[in-house]
């Protein structure tokens, strides 16, 4: 066990965990922030996506010992982020979700995409969200909602 000082959603957090513990499980079980989801544990589904130093990152394969000072931002902070809020609003307007379990990860990837590429093409969307599984299959509405958020932010 070791103690780590983290920056999560702009706040300092101290956690004690085994160094191998993935960031995902620190968020979920130590910090009780369960908006970030466990889907596969091998970075093959994207449900656990958070932003680490602004980069969309699969938190299920990042050991807590490697996070360091880099700021971590999760779905719980998205309503305070202008792009995050626009994406969430577009998701609601387009009635994207079904079971909803993957959507935190989809939204975190969509926000990262729109911050880098405000007017994404279909190809950009497929590249940025290409590794996110939605088992319900809401992909058509995800595309529409990203384009809608892009319009709203323009």
């Amino acid at each position, binding site marked *: *066990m070791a103690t780590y000082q983290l920056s999560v959603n702009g706040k300092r957090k101290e956690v004690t965990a*085994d160094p*191998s*513990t*993935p960031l995902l*499980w620190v968020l*979920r*079980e130590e910090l*009780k*922030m*369960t*908006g*970030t*989801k*466990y*889907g*596969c*544990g*091998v970075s*093959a*589904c994207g*449900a656990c996506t958070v932003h680490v130093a602004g980069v969309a990152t699969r938190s299920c394969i990042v050991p807590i010992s490697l996070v360091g000072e880099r700021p971590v931002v*999760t*779905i*719980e902070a*998205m*309503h305070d982020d202008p792009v995050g809020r626009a994406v*969430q609003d577009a*998701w*609601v307007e387009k*009635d*994207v*979700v*079904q*079971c*909803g*379990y*993957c*959507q*935190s990860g989809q*939204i975190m990837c969509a926000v990262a995409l729109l911050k880098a590429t405000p007017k994404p093409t*279909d190809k950009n*969307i*497929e590249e940025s*969200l*290409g*590794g*996110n*599984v*939605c*088992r*319900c*299959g*809401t*992909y*058509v*509405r*995800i*595309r529409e909602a990203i384009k809608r958020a892009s319009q709203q932010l323009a």
Partner: protein
Amino acid sequence: MRLKSENSTGFSRRGFLRVSAAAAGGLLASLYFDLRSVAQEGQAPPAKIYPPDAFIHIKPDNKIVIQVNRLEFGQGVHTSLPMILADELDADWQQVIAELAPAADVYKDPLYGMQMVGGSGSIAHSFQQYRELGAKTRAMLVAAAADRWKVSPDQCRTEASVVHGPGGKTAKYAELAEAAARRPVPATARLKQPSEFRLIGKPVRRLDSRSKCDGSLKFGLDLDLPEMKVAVVAHPPVFGGRVKGFTDSEARSIDGVREVFEIPLAKGTGVAVVADRFWAAKQARDRLKIEWDLSGVEHADSSQLWTKYKELARTPGNVSVARGDAKAIDQVDAAKRLVAEYEFPYLAHSPMEPLNTTVRFDGDRAEVWAGSQFQTMDHMAVAQVLGLKPEQVTFHTEMAGGGFGRRAVIDSHVQREAAVIAKRLRGTPVKLVWPREDDVRGGYYRPMHAHRVEIGVGPDGMPSAWRHVIVGQSLVAGTPFAAMLIKNGVDATTVEGTADTSYNIPNFQVSAHNPTVNVPVLWWRSVGHTHNAFVMETLIDELATLAKVDSIAYRRKLLKSDAKKLRGALDLLDEKTKGWRDKLPQDHAVGIALHESFGTAVACAVDISIDNKRPRIHRATVAVDCGLAVNPLSVESQFQAGLSFGLSQLMAKGAITLKDGRVEQRNFDGYTPPYIVDAPMAVDVHIVPSTEAPTGCGEPPVPVISPAVVNALARLTGKRYRNLPLATI
């Protein structure tokens, strides 16, 4: 019977439900699996009077809480069932809150006689029930207002949770709730005419949308209770294997590990690790050194099973349906005969939220939290393991991250495991988690199937004789469902979608073999239709091509005259796709499929090209007849997304295979679901206008897409695709 009123606050929803149930005649006291009712599926269910107080809670602040008698796991009933009730109640939709009901007799499916989601029956079976609940409650509120104002109920009308009386009098439902609750529940109440609907038939957005977008919604896996522990189980590498011995010193050396012990499983035995946290539990589980006894259990092997299945498919099975002359095919000239063999592998459901259940056992009581499609059975299973009566076990229905059948398990194996572990940790809540690897390798798959079809083609190019043999494990043999679903030795779910085809084929025989294999199998969204629609719709397309007839025209000609829903869907598809079908770029092709399942008819057209050696679906159009579309927005969503789920069958790595009894895939890297590039880029959904009773939309999107795509592929490559998954094109 009481409606919750402003004067009786102070007890929790659980307390409220307990009181309600007691008032309604001790309904919680006698949980049972109503086999008789299940066996009567298809017949009118016995008349039941549902107590409104178990479903509706009008709160002092005018909020109206509506209990949803089923699991929500994406299909949208958490919105659509409250819509139905709220419409008849004339409730203010902005004030409606939906909750998933716990396990209780009163929440059983009116037709199935158990609390469950399956067979796309949620709306179909509860439409009338929720309408009546709303209408009766409305009548009671109106009567209370009429009493108060000393007027006739006929002089009152309702809108947005307010009763309006003569002379501009108004009363909010919340003000009337207590008086209304003292009135008897009327035996009948007038239901609205369709023209009076305010919500039913209108596109309504989901109630659970925002909380699923901001991370605040708690799924079963997100549950956190004081002192809760997390359990992960080592399951045998071959189904039914048993623990011979194990060494846990390395596992126990991990911080936070509390207990390691052997447990019985639905088949065989395993080793449970209980820890403070998931990560510790999983790490410890993976470090157990277990010696397994794998003798005495069949080591299933996919390649050997294919050999066996294909041999079986060449012999007649138990006859499911026989029309005309079964031997007519033998008289058909070889040149006029089409013989086709198909392979379908095992498929895992792999819902996004890994399987989990939390149980706390307190000696004479227990509490369970589970995203369950089969609450009645899972509830009973936990009670049985703990030696309790069902009424001593409170069973909460948790929001679930998908399921597709995986949470509708007849042997309740996840809940049993959780209960066994919780029993040992008396007083401590334990959350059992099946990590993704356990789910991919843990069985309960869509069974593998072989089909062999011999078709005689008549002089008009239409099929004159059809002999069809299907091989695949039964989903229900040896279970309480067998009586209902096995007829003449054939599991109805093996042949559904073929035996009941609406194509008019004069000499038609379907038979089936249901071999026993040591691999647990389970219904996978749309069940038998997954493979039967693929076989039927690819063969019909091939016949149309051989006959040089347009594939829509061929199907229209072949449909039975009474196939009204299918014909309507096909006509609508034809109309809506005319604009683009004939104007495709040169390297694109159209594929068509038509299929009815669970009472809903679906016609589908896709526009595809080949990109990176995979089908690229530029567009899909579906036309649907699902009776009255209660929430057209939800119908559209289910179809758009359900097509993607159906494409699971075509993924290059979309198969579960076994070698020497061991599953060869571990996770999404080896068993790959469709990603965004695999899904249609756009889907337009057209609903056939209807006032007929609503039928389901959860499963019917799934069967059509795979055959439509390979039918289009066949036009591009000239090949036919009969072995799934689609490893190469």
